[in-house]
């Protein structure tokens, strides 16, 4: 199987740690990521209005490119996953959006949602498996209590994204466990960090993140992991300084697989 890879705008720049660790680990785990030769920013937010056609085009272009090369598209960033998977669902289920997008793109073969969009975590869970991952861990993250921070984009809406149970997800906890660390479950792991509000109302993000971090810390977490560069930024820039370092899940993966190199963490 070819794992076409869509890095997205932030993974090429501010979230290189998320990207580099993921690529190296994928090689080690036997599913090398093949970056799409050309891709555009997905737009970062899903265009909810059904008449927002232009905003859907970049996602569809990536989906079409993946269709022409095996039909699987892997993403790492929660926002890319959210936007591309939802647009793909629109293309498969909404005839009006499908027609308008296809009229615009003038493809040889119209696109109707054929590509399978996978998050990297799904590949680990469904293609590699936690047991095999655990066997490949050479540097188990012993005695580390790690809280998974899902945020909102990775899980909701559950009916479309279908990555995991939206209210009681397990995928990141199973991942943490496979790496030899102890997953810490806390109630605010799927509540919003404030997202794009950081640009308009930083004080509000400060409050939301403090609540999340306090909740995680009170449940015993010593560090947090996330798949989203925006969550990572908000969780690092807010809340008590130095409390609960936040890292990308792929950084922990690289550490456990012993493929971490000199690059520093996302702290």
């Amino acid at each position, binding site marked *: 199987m070819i794992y076409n890879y869509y890095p997205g705008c932030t993974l090429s720049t501010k979230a290189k740690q998320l990207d580099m660790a993921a690529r190296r680990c994928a090689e080690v785990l036997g599913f090398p990521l093949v970056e799409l030769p050309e891709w555009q920013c997905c*737009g970062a937010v*899903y265009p*909810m209005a059904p008449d927002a056609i232009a905003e859907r085009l970049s996602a569809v272009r990536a989906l079409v490119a993946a269709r022409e090369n095996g039909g699987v598209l892997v993403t790492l960033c929660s926002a890319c996953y959210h936007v591309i998977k939802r647009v793909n669902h629109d293309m498969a289920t909404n005839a009006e959006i499908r027609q308008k997008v296809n009229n615009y793109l003038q493809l040889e073969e119209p696109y109707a949602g054929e590509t399978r969009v996978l998050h990297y975590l799904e590949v680990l869970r469904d293609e590699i498996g936690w047991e095999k991952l655990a066997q490949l861990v050479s540097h188990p993250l012993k005695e580390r209590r790690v809280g998974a921070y899902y945020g909102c984009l990775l899980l909701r*809406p559950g009916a479309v994204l279908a990555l995991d149970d939206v209210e009681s997800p397990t995928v990141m906890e199973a991942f943490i466990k496979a790496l030899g660390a102890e997953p810490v479950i806390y109630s605010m792991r799927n509540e919003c960090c404030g997202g794009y*509000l*950081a*640009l308009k109302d930083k004080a509000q993000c400060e409050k939301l993140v403090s609540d999340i971090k306090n909740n995680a810390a009170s449940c015993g977490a010593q560090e947090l992991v996330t798949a989203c560069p925006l969550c990572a930024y908000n969780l690092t820039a807010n809340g008590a300084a130095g409390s609960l370092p936040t890292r990308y899940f792929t950084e922990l993966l690289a550490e456990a697989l012993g493929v971490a190199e000199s690059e520093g963490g996302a702290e």
Partner: protein
Amino acid sequence: MAVDEKQLTEDILRLAATDVRRCMQCGRCSANCPEGFKMDLLPHRVMWDLNSGHASELLEADAPWQCLSCMACEERCPRGVSPARVMEALRLLQIRQQGNNKLPAESVEHYPSDMPQQLLVAAFRKYNK
């Protein structure tokens, strides 16, 4: 200028593409909203106004500009309604009018250097056209 409430309601519903009439005013959306305590109109009140012919009030509300599009309201609505989509419709009806951007780039004085592109793209897409 008198607002045609009926036309405005239709415009909002067309852009929102969610069945607001199914709302039973249980308030679960408002209880789940991480921004609820900052909103001048809670999500269930927005649904109520829309269903009772007071759509023009919604264009005055600050609530859509507090919404984070985190989808908690939509996910947890027992009636399958999406207040998040209504908030999006209310934003779009305003920012699609020329000169009505809510967060012009020149109004942002400081961008921390480590702020990810994802955040900037998301914010400018939500508040501007």
